[in-house]
């Protein structure tokens, strides 16, 4: 493809705008978005494993030694696979064909929701004597504690993915896959850390994490939509 004529004044002005945009990309966020995909993957994966690693090695659930291995490993694997899907979708580069909203949902929803729902089933963890039934704290205290911990554990990875997202049209745009990764890291951390197996606690404190993540993704999207993503100056306003 070769230029057939000199660039029009409109295109020249557009390029000047674009150069200003490029200058803004010299900041840390811009540099992180421009990292090679391998480096983006490695940093996201390392970051995503911090919370589960910490929970498993430094603050494991007290009933870990007596927990039935098969359901525990199966559920951990389920969370891991769902997290992998979310990371893969969140880090997908824009020069690759986009995945439609329907397909995105069909990949994310079964993996993430299945992991969350299975984790909340009593059969997944309440079959051994050492499990803490309702916990030592009251219902609301323990549920709130897990809820806030799970949320706080997921926020850093979601923020990192929003920064690494090359396809974002706003400086900080939380995509559905990034929010799902945050949700799953928090829920996986809770699965490895919390010994309470009361179904009501699991639904309120663990599966309930779905609500703030959905709300956060919707709110952030609305905010950017209201502000508008258009950063190109209308030509009639150009000095």
């Amino acid at each position, binding site marked *: 493809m070769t230029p057939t004529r000199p660039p029009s004044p409109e*295109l020249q002005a*557009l390029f000047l705008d674009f150069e200003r945009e490029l200058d803004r990309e010299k900041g840390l966020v811009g540099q992180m978005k421009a990292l090679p995909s391998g480096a983006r993957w490695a940093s996201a994966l390392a970051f995503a494993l911090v919370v589960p690693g910490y929970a498993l090695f430094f603050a494991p659930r007290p009933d870990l030694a007596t927990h039935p291995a098969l359901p525990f490993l199966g559920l951990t694997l389920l969370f891991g696979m769902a997290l992998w899907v979310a990371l893969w979708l969140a880090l997908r580069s824009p020069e690759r064909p986009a995945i439609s909203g329907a397909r995105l949902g069909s990949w994310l929803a079964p993996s993430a929701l299945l992991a969350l729902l299975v984790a909340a089933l009593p059969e997944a963890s309440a079959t051994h004597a050492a499990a803490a039934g309702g916990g030592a704290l009251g219902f609301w205290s323990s549920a709130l504690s897990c809820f806030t911990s799970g949320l706080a554990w997921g926020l850093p990875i979601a923020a990192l993915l929003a920064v690494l997202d090359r396809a974002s049209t706003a400086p900080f745009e939380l995509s559905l896959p990034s929010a799902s990764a945050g949700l799953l890291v928090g829920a996986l951390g809770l699965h490895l850390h919390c010994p309470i197996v009361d179904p009501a606690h699991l639904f309120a404190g663990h599966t309930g994490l779905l609500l703030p993540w959905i709300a956060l993704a919707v709110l952030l999207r609305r905010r950017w939509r209201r502000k508008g993503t258009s950063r190109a100056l209308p030509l009639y306003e150009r000095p």
Partner: protein
Amino acid sequence: MLTDEELMRAYVAGDRMAFRELFERYAPALLRMARRDLRQPEDAHDLVQQTFLQLHRARADFREGARVRPWVFTIAMNLKRQYFRTKGRRPEAPLVLEGADDPKATTGDPETPLIVSSVRRAVEELPAAQREVIELHWFEDLPFAEVAEVLGASQSAVKVRAHRGYQRLKARLGGDSDVTDASLRVYANWRSES
């Protein structure tokens, strides 16, 4: 003259002017495509800027064997889809044909505005999957292999979509292959000149 890929490699190596050259090669076609579909001039400008911004962000992944043109069009198509997903609607046919009153665009055959208008409407009535293939192959001159790369589909699937789209256009434009081909050529010329 350097190829697109040589320019991209030069840009990755730090030659900023190489990116300007790429911009000058691709921005006109992208702006035409965006202006036709997005209607609002500032949205069309934004799409072009975002396309090059995302190309700039992805430059570290540009490896030997990669091709610039499918990258550019893939990014632009993704952004266009994202735009309509956000706006929640498909492109609408304009009531007044843009550029039809532009003397440059309508010199020669006085029937050109009419042909352009009817082809444009026919194209916009195509299902999105067929319209994308027709636009990229017929109007942006991308071979089927590159169209397949841009849309993330197999070449055979793209050819099937192109064939079905062409059949619909033919039915809409009178049912004759020669007339359809001639009309599409007139429309393609008008697009490249407007």
